[in-house]
């Protein structure tokens, strides 16, 4: 690449790295988060997601186009990407801050990836019933249409027993637990799925979602089944964020302790 070409690219993309663009994108996101949350209170999460959180463009009164959160987030992502290339100070002393920004980049990128690839299903079993078929649902666990898409899971799952327990003398639930038998290929094993304790198999994760009773002692248990190949991405990103913040703040603390100011100098 010639020096000239480099300069042209730089001239094209440098504005994308601008701090002012960061502030604008963030302000946009803040406004959309507030609007979407208030909208959600009146119209429910699904509608809020359609209109604000998962949208590129919001049509105000049907005619006025405003940016949706997806657009604002994409803008911020590109801004961050450009900033990591053109603007961030590459110096070992800024290592923590760099790591934080890379972590954010991965967190947002991972979010996009998961939003595009992850699928969620719902599986309801009565005690004693077994199945491999799960129903496709949207991100809120709502069936998408009347004849929802079915998917054949690579594991067979049989509900052996469902148990719930309450705190004594109250209606406050203490725990929900499903005992299941899972069949993978030719092997079978018992497993327990309970609140905060999902069952994982390859890219699938089974969560205890809800239960119901038919009034005759029969119980059924509903699992949400999530298939998510990018599941680990937010974890890596979070680790980078933690580490970056820790490095940055320990550095700041060390600097502050080194130059402790003389007493009483800051009084109003």
């Amino acid at each position, binding site marked *: 690449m010639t020096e000239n070409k480099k300069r042209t690219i730089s001239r094209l993309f440098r504005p994308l790295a*601008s*701090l*002012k663009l*960061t*502030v604008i994108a*963030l*302000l946009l*996101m*803040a406004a959309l*988060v*507030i609007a*979407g*949350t208030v909208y*959600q*209170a009146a119209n429910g*999460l699904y509608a*809020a*997601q359609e209109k604000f*959180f998962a949208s590129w463009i919001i049509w105000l009164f049907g005619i006025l186009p405003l940016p949706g959160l997806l657009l604002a987030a994409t803008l911020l992502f590109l801004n961050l990407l450009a900033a990591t290339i053109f603007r961030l100070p590459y110096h070992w002393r800024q290592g923590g801050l760099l790591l934080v920004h890379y972590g954010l980049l991965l967190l947002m990128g991972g*979010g996009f990836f*998961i939003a595009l690839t992850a699928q*969620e299903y719902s599986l309801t079993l009565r005690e004693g019933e077994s199945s491999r078929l799960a129903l496709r649902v949207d*991100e*809120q666990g709502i069936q998408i249409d009347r004849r929802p898409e079915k998917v054949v899971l690579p594991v067979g799952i049989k509900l052996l027993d469902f148990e719930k327990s*309450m*705190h*004594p*003398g*109250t209606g*406050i*639930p*203490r*725990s929900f637990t499903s005992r299941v038998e899972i069949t993978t290929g030719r092997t079978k094993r018992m497993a327990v799925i309970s*609140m*905060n304790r*999902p069952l994982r198999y390859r890219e699938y994760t089974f*969560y205890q*979602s809800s239960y119901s009773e038919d009034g005759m002692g029969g119980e059924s248990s509903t699992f*949400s089944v*999530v298939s*998510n190949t990018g*599941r680990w991405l*937010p974890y890596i990103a*979070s680790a980078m*964020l*933690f580490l970056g*913040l820790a490095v940055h*703040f320990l550095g*700041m603390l060390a600097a*502050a*302790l080194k130059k*402790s*100011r*003389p*007493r*009483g*100098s*800051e*009084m*109003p």
Partner: protein
Amino acid sequence: MKRSIFLALLASWLLSSAVLSAATHLGPFQRLVVLEEGRKKPLDTFARNLLKQFSGRASLAGMSASAWLARVFFTPEKTFDDKIFLVNQPDVLAAMGVEGEGRGRFSFSRLRPGLGRLHELAFQYANLQDSGKGRFENETLRLFYNVSAYYNLLEAFRSIQAGSAAHPDRQSASGLPAIVPLGGGPGEPWLSPAQVLAHGASLPATVQREISLLAQASRAYATGRKNDFGQALTAFNRSVQVRLGPQAVRSSKISMEIYYNHIDPFFKAELAYGLALLILLLSMALPRFRLDRLSALCLLGGSLAHTFGLIARMLIMNRPPVTNLYETFVFVAWTGVVMGLLMAWWQKTELGILAGGIAGIVFLAIAGRYSLDGDTLGMLAAVLDSNLWLTTHVVTISLGYAGCVVAGIFGHVVIIQKLLDPRSTAAAGTTRLLYAALAFGLAFTSIGTVMGGIWADQSWGRFWGWDPKENGALLIIIWCAILFHARLAGWIGQIGLAAGSIGAIIAVVMAWFGVNLLGVGLHAYGFTTGAARGLLAFVGGELLFLAVAVPLCKKNAAESGGNKAQ
């Protein structure tokens, strides 16, 4: 030397309990174990929550809540003149046809002539939708429920005392303390004494013996034989303890909870913080006397009581410091105080004491109001129980909230400093503290939010779900990020940052309990309308302050020619 003596005095005041009643006859009474809302707790806690619910206070004219409850149980007629019913609205009294002016506490005998009317009113209002109830309707219902609860309490021991079968109307009375476990097992019901009597002859022999012990105690109290009263209840407690086994009710935890109740650590901490602020004001007026040290010591002393309270609660319930809304107030107050103390110590500035004292006193006062709603040590629903990510997430987020709140307090200070003197160099020092607090707030809110995402992913299979509480936390993060980047971009200066940090407080309170006002989502855990009004008043007040002070600051700065002070 002088300092350590002062500190020792302060600590002993903070940790001494006004009523060291373990030695008195009331000790065994306080130690009766009640099963309420799924938790086994000392009767002392039951009594305090009840009296707070009735009167807004945990004691009655110097008498502890337990002493009051014993009188209600065993000598009911003597309590008719106790002024225990707090009426916030005189209109309710007028509607009852009872004379009385202003907000105040009234006795049962004073309210008695109007109870018929109160009942009629409550009967009408009980069927209204929540949206159809105003202040008056809610206050009427509150008073009615409290008087009804008191009625039930009056009957709690009457039949046992008389040795007769329970009054049929009172057998299923709710709100009575369930102090007698019917069997020994974990699933077996606990009953109030009147309910047990209704079971009659079908009771096991041990339970029958326990009931007769309660009857003995009851008669002993009524005839003034305090020693016999204590002995009978001690025997009752021992019998129940043996029946349940040592695992079911830990006697050390019961003792700890009673001690915690009597010390009332958060109230004392609040007093100490108030004292610290008062002395700080004095020291600013009289700089010659070096009162700033004394003020710092008061803050430190308060924080010791505060810390003790937090630890005691963790030990009693075997759980992390923040598990419900009440505890977030207490914990954020504590974090604010500790941050203030650290700043005062490291940076040698009274501003740390100021911010810590304000954060401590404001959030403990909110916690105190909130505690009137009932037991603050409630059990947790399944989804919230025993998960490392969840608990660390809540604690971390609370640290972040505290950081933003402290930054916002410094924001006010900067604006006031700039108003008083546009060329103030002190404002630059305050801004440095503000910056540090805001960075702390941003970091911990971010970490806490991400941890919440990890928890959600592990429990529900999604990292992020646009729940209002999540959105609130995201908003704080975005807002703090805006401030830092706008500062870097040169779009805002000292005043802008100060105003923005006040915006951060607003973002925090909106995320913290504003989303509870919306009443949707997974995190909407109960809120009262009075609090909503207070919240709106606070936000309105802050916006007004900004609208007036910021333009004034800018004008001052322009006039004094300080172009850097933008």
